[in-house]
């Protein structure tokens, strides 16, 4: 949930605010997690990854996980599904085009139906920002946000963090703190405005001490982006941003959300494409990330995507592991250790 510290101004009132309690196993925004929780998720990820496959099956044996996907997805859906299956859970996939959603069933009713069918946890991908809160309110179940509109994609930010940490300080899990990424600059480049991956990363990484630089043309990167949280700045000159960066995260141009924007793709490539010449000149050591899907030849060239600096395939592998940890957390968590504003479900 977006940070609760900024409560609406309620001058006239010694009001009874309507605190909406979210299941403590939910993960809808990176703001739901304090750093201790990030640490324990990373720890659980490593433990689960290293575990014997048969033993791992016992964690969530026969637990029921629903994947509710209103948008297409390859990586996220498959990795959540694989993660659930490796933990022994039963999964059922409901996608917008092959369900009653097509007939006009609301998100609330779809959620209630899934719960009635025995779902214990719902993984939601949805084109509307904030949709997981609707589902969470309607069902009271743990909801894992697999991407909501332009809002957030918290599991992606966690797997990106794990990828970054693995490269910067080795694969051994260690607690994270406000200084873990001190001195590290991470550039996120491309279609920031439409990107939930960018939002989750720019809200999570600075909390570990990183500096986040955003790079992209005005149409895809409004000035207000820099005010989304602390530790974020805009550097429209991608080369200058690269020079300062240890990590660069490339984003896809989201053609499906571009309605009405006039973007000259050739000019875009000249200024913002991650290609070998640019990396060699400005960031020969930087780690290159991309949440996928990549559009080769547009925001990134094949040489870079497949090259030695790329950790794109690694990100996907971390995705399965992180999502195992999130599923275990969702289905076994108690209300303990949660942020103050999140209550236990009655």
């Amino acid at each position, binding site marked *: 949930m977006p940070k609760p510290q900024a409560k609406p101004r309620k001058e006239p009132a010694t009001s009874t605010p309507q605190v909406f309690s979210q299941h403590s196993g939910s993960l809808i925004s990176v703001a739901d997690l304090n750093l201790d929780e990030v640490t324990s998720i990373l720890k659980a990820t490593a433990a689960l990854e290293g575990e014997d496959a048969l033993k791992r099956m016992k964690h969530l044996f026969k637990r029921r996980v629903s994947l509710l996907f209103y948008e297409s997805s390859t990586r996220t859906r498959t990795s959540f599904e694989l993660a659930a299956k490796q933990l022994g859970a039963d999964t059922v996939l409901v996608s917008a085009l092959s369900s009653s959603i097509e007939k006009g069933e609301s998100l609330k009713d779809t959620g209630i139906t899934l719960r009635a069918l025995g779902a214990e946890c719902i993984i939601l991908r949805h084109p509307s*920002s*904030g*949709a997981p809160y609707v589902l969470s309110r309607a069902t009271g179940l743990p909801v894992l946000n697999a991407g909501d509109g332009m809002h957030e994609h918290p599991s992606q930010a966690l797997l990106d963090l794990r990828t970054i940490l693995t490269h910067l300080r080795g694969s051994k899990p260690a607690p994270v703190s406000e200084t873990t990424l001190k001195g590290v600059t991470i550039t996120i480049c491309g279609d920031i405005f439409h990107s939930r991956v960018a939002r989750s990363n720019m809200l999570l990484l600075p909390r570990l001490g990183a500096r986040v630089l955003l790079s992209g043309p005005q149409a895809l990167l409004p000035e*207000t982006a820099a005010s989304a949280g602390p530790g974020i700045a805009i550097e429209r000159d991608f080369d200058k941003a690269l020079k300062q960066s240890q990590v660069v995260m490339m984003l896809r141009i989201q053609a499906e959300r571009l309605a009405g924007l006039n973007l000259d793709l050739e000019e875009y490539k000249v200024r913002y494409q991650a290609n070998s010449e640019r990396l060699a000149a400005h960031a020969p050591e930087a780690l290159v990330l991309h949440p996928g899907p990549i559009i080769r030849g547009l925001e990134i060239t094949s040489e870079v995507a497949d090259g030695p600096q790329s950790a794109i395939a690694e990100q996907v592998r971390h995705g399965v592991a992180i999502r195992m940890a999130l599923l275990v957390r969702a289905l076994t968590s108690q209300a303990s250790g949660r942020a103050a504003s999140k209550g236990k479900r009655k």
Partner: protein
Amino acid sequence: MKAILIRGGRVIDPASGLDADRDLLLKDGRVSAIEAPGKLNGAAKQEAAEVIDAKGLVVAPGLVDIHVHLREPGQGYKETIASGTAAAAAGGFTAVCAMPNTIPVNDSPETTRWMQSPERGAQIRVFPIAAATRGSMGEALTEYGALKAAGAVGVTDDGKPILGDSIMRQTLAAAARAGLPVIQHAEDTRMTGGCSMNAGALAFRLGLRGMPVEAESNLVERDIRLLSEMKNGRAHLHVAHLSTAKALEAVKSARRNGLHVTCEVAPHHFVLNEEAVADYNTHAKMNPPLRSEADRQAMLDGIIEGAVDSIATDHAPHAAHEKEQEFERSPNGITGLETALGLTMAVLHGKHKLPLSRIISLLSTQPASVLNLKGRGSLAVGSFADVVIFDPKKQWTFQASASKSKSRNTPFDGWTMLGAVIATISEGRIVYRG
């Protein structure tokens, strides 16, 4: 109809500058007499009047809301004229002006009369505001003279603002001839497609497309420019639910230039800012959206300094299933009739120490004057017997579940309010008792 004597109250009637302990006699639907305490006892006895003891209470002209959506005809599942006016009466209102975005759009004298028919079961007076163009399509003007004769008190295309210069010019000219104000929902919808909240850092963080303040101020400035170019000096532009400092500046400057421009501000725009939607609360989603803290402050300042003519609720009921949706899909609007007085009293009187006479003026006298509602918003002898009696010191808690509206879409559920309505009297009938 039984006469009513309201005895021992503090009568505040901004229209006549009265603020004193007075007794008030209502007879045949009109204010019959106002006299010093005790002086009307004889007359009241003669009339066998019902006596209301108003000791310690404020007696004021009934509140007037010039911007409500009563949803009839066509959307009785959200609200009916009966339920909406019952909520209004509970909120101290004795007159409401109903917007034309009904189904069908109120663009005809027939619908205008239908809305005022006794069969609708209105608890208080309903003044329809008619569509400015047929079907609110922004193309052909409706017949303002006939609409006015049927009871319309203004014209507007409300949620579908008139964008074309030429049609807006025609609207202003024809309305001036008919003696009707043109009410504009100022939003350049070409700038707000797909938007569901105020533009800015918060919208970015929430991943929602934002409406820039210029979408409002540009259209206000355009309308004022068209007004200033008109030959007919009687044209009157009223800006509905103003929400930005920029648009308020435009209104103030137009008035300095002698143009007849008025504006209203909704309670939510001076009580809440955009942070209220930070948890995707669809009960805080409306259009214009809740704005930045600076804009909220500008609305407060504008009201306090007298630049704002009227407080109006933009009461916009929606069914639960419509609001329990994804934020971007949920319809705009919140209910407001039962919380307007309580919020205005709490913020403007309680916190900002605006005198009671100003509060009543903003909620009754001035709105009645903006839409030229004769005999409303005043307690002068001969006026309609529209009266609200309220306890200005009493705090109470608003419970949405107890609302008389058919809908519950309010961000103020559980809020502490100031100023409890004790009785509402509409044209001499007691329509609400608290």
